[in-house]
């Protein structure tokens, strides 16, 4: 696992994906930080975090798009799958590499916090709460992206499909927003969709609430999709 993790980390930087990802992430989070926090004259970083949901949603597919699709296309998966390593090692090695890069990107908020501390007292509880919320959100999204990457040989298809799936997950909540007070069917639909919602769960954190069930939800999603990815690799071997 460690060998794959190290190689993936190296590949992020040699291929330039890491630079693009980090630059865009820093740039946009910087804008949100400036607009939402500094200009509003507050030391509460929640407004920035709530806007960052969209950035995470659109940037994570860039991170995960080539993780498995390129291996398949270049037939390098033959090297991995015939080496004495398990499928979980392969998948988790790649998963944690992407997660590490995401954490590097996300940790920029501590620099923002230092900047903030020059102007007043930073609300550290909210900052950490949001930091971890975003971390687990990213963890879940990366697993989804990795799974989609395992389904195709084409990087672009993988990226677009991941973005669309995450976007649909986000929009689905808006679609059923009116259903809460409708008939039984509508209620069931509403409950079902909101139970799988990423957005409102994430928003709970930016509202100042640390919700353990949501953290568990994100972690289970991550686990589930990594499991699916392993199954996809296994199935390909058996087909």
């Amino acid at each position: 696992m460690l060998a794959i993790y190290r190689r993936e980390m190296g590949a992020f930087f040699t291929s330039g994906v890491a630079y693009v990802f980090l630059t865009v992430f820093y740039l946009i989070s910087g804008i949100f930080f400036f607009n939402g926090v500094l200009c509003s004259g507050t030391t509460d970083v929640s407004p920035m975090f709530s806007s960052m949901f969209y950035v995470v949603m659109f940037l994570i597919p860039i991170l995960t798009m080539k993780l498995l699709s390129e291996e398949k296309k270049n037939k390098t998966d033959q090297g991995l799958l015939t080496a004495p390593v398990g499928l979980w090692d392969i998948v988790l090695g790649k998963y944690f590499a992407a997660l590490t890069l995401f954490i590097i990107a996300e940790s920029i908020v501590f620099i923002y916090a230092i900047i903030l501390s020059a102007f007043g007292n930073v609300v550290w509880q909210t900052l950490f709460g949001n930091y971890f919320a975003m971390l687990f959100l990213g963890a879940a999204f990366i697993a989804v992206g990795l799974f989609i990457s395992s389904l195709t040989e084409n990087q672009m298809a993988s990226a677009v499909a991941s973005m669309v799936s995450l976007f649909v997950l986000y929009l689905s909540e808006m679609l059923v927003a009116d259903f809460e007070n409708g008939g039984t069917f509508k209620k069931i639909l509403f409950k079902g969709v909101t139970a799988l919602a990423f957005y409102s769960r994430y928003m709970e954190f930016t509202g100042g609430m640390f919700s353990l069930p949501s953290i568990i939800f994100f972690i289970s999603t991550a686990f589930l999709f990594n499991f699916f990815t392993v199954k996809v690799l296994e199935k390909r071997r058996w087909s």
Partner: protein
Amino acid sequence: MIEVKNLTKKYGDKLAVNDISFKVEKGEILGFLGPNGAGKSTTMNMLTGYISSTSGQVLIDGVDILEDPKKAKSNIGYLPEIPPLYIDMTVDAYLNFMFDLKKCKQPRKKHLEDICELCKISHVRKRLIKNLSKGYRQRVGLAQALLNKPPVIILDEPTVGLDPNQIIEIRTLIKQLGKRHTVILSSHILPEIQAVCDRIIIINKGQVAADGTADEIAKNISNEHKMTLRIEGPTHTKDDKTKIADALRSIDGITYVRADMEREKGIYDYDVETDGKTDVRRAINKLCAEKGWNILMLQLSDMTLEDIFLKITMSEGITASDSSNAPKLEVKVKDGELIASEKTDDNKEKADAETAEETDGSENNGGEE
């Protein structure tokens, strides 16, 4: 060392590999020979655990590749048809990665140096793989397969894309490896297999069509013998040719005669096949003495691997429905028939062509004289 039992692979309805069984002993170099699409790569992918088999079993050093894949795979070094190289890495970085991936226990620096020396890539270690030529990429792929000194090395068409010098180098290397490792390599290049391998398995349409050394296969696959005769007739014309060919055909034990090109002026060569039981040389000699012809040459030609390969792979004799154990004999018979019929067709065409050439030739000669 490697044991394959009734290995079968189906892709949907398509039978890619049909009930292959063989064993490879330690220190043996086994060659997989077969036309494109015969199932060589599929078999190798199953041996290395890249894909699973539909049914059957692969044992590497007694370990089932599907039951304990990690242990079995740690005994294999595999060079697939397309080397699994990450082209944006340097050779060094890539080999280090594979070193870690294969959990090698050897001292890293020394081991990598040895392997690079062996594959002659020491001078390109700092270069990016994407800037290397096909031949060097192939060698890096080979180096990767040799990491950790696995007891079993499986090479899928290792010399494709190399220049003649490199091919010779790689062959020497494989022979060298065969002393300490068990090697399986596939190829559709006959001389390569013949030069390198102790044993040959010919695969056609997903089945083992022949198994043994080149000589054994030659003996098994055909019990007929070929010879080339050059006989001088009395008139030095084409009439001789038909007369002699007909007379030869009438000899007991000769199954097939084909008049070949005009080698010397007015003298023709004849390709003769016998049933292999009777020695027809004396009978031919007697015939020629009686008729007053002169035998200028008699050459026995045993079947080369190439003949065998063509014989096996060109025929439709081996069908998926044959169960592989029993029908070897049957196959031969079928082959024989098929080949014979094809050959007669060829013969007619050639004969026509020859007549055309001959008329041209005589005209020219006449002009000169």
